[in-house]
């Protein structure tokens, strides 16, 4: 936001982000959504931390069949999906997530990761993944790679989560403690920047 004087009157210029920020309800995303290839690890983590509802505001989600099968996996003899699996099934049926398979497979890891990486690579999609080794390789091959922990910080930076909620979501992620602490530091820094910029307390 910029404030200036124009012919004696106060002129306030708002960016799109200023208009979105602080909107308490009925979020109407003005960010340009990005196409993203989903891996099972990201979905499971995001679901566990109740983050999945934020995903469609930032990404057009695409998941290969192999990833769907991994998330909706049923142990032999079991007929009930896990909560993450059931949620994905509902999203699929509601058309909130598109199934898209790569035309050319890569053979770096297992079926799911291979398919998600191949799809991101050939379509230029962002890769949403929370598995360390495939994350590393995908990144090394030049893919735009995002983990669930990054996504929490994005949602907080976009003022969709309060400071306390962001910390609580980070705590509930199934990630390493030192990673959670680094993300909490990032959230704390953003809170401080916001407080300095807005001139008020953000709840930190």
């Amino acid at each position, binding site marked *: 936001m910029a404030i200036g004087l124009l012919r004696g009157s106060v002129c306030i210029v708002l960016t799109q982000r200023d208009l979105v920020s602080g909107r308490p309800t009925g979020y109407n995303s003005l960010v340009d959504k990005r196409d993203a290839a989903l891996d099972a690890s990201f979905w499971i*983590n995001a679901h566990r931390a109740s983050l999945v509802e934020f995903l469609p505001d930032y990404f057009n989600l695409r998941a290969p069949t192999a990833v769907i099968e991994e998330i909706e996996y049923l142990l032999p003899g079991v007929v009930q999906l896990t909560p993450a699996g059931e949620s994905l099934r509902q999203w699929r049926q509601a058309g909130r997530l598109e199934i898209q398979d790569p035309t050319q497979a890569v053979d770096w890891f297992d079926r799911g990761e291979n398919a998600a990486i191949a799809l991101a690579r050939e379509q230029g999609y*962002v890769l949403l993944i929370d598995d360390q080794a495939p994350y590393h390789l995908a990144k090394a091959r030049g893919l735009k790679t*995002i*983990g669930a922990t990054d996504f929490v910080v994005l949602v907080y930076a976009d003022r969709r989560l309060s400071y306390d909620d962001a910390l609580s979501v980070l705590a509930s992620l199934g990630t390493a403690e030192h990673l959670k602490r680094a993300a909490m530091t990032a959230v704390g820094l953003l809170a401080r920047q916001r407080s300095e910029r807005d001139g008020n307390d953000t709840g930190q």
Partner: protein
Amino acid sequence: MATTQVNEETIAKEVKLTDTEAKRLKQLSQAEHLPEDALLRKWILEGLDRMRLRYACTLYEQGRLNLSGAARYAGVGVERMMQELTRRGIEHSPSVAQFVDGLDTLADLFDMDELHTAADEVRRREENKAAESAQC
């Protein structure tokens, strides 16, 4: 958990026990109201599942399997595999360096400079921490 019956042919395996072990088995069989062979089968299956899961965790930790591969090896879903790795303190999520790179990626994707600033600061603090540990 709801289950369906899986019909599969079984084969016999012989297990030799000492007198003491056989007596203990008999006692537990009576206490559990299960025939001895059913009890032994239950324990073997539970043990096999546990061992496969443990070995899958080891292979993951050694970098010989990724999440899906480890889950498939252990005969569990990816979600269960992630829980098991977390429970055993085996890191499976991206590293701090990868997380910070991810923030930069998000900053570029969504035009959020504040994420770049946060990423730079976290990176600087991590480097300081590493330098301090190296000195110690």
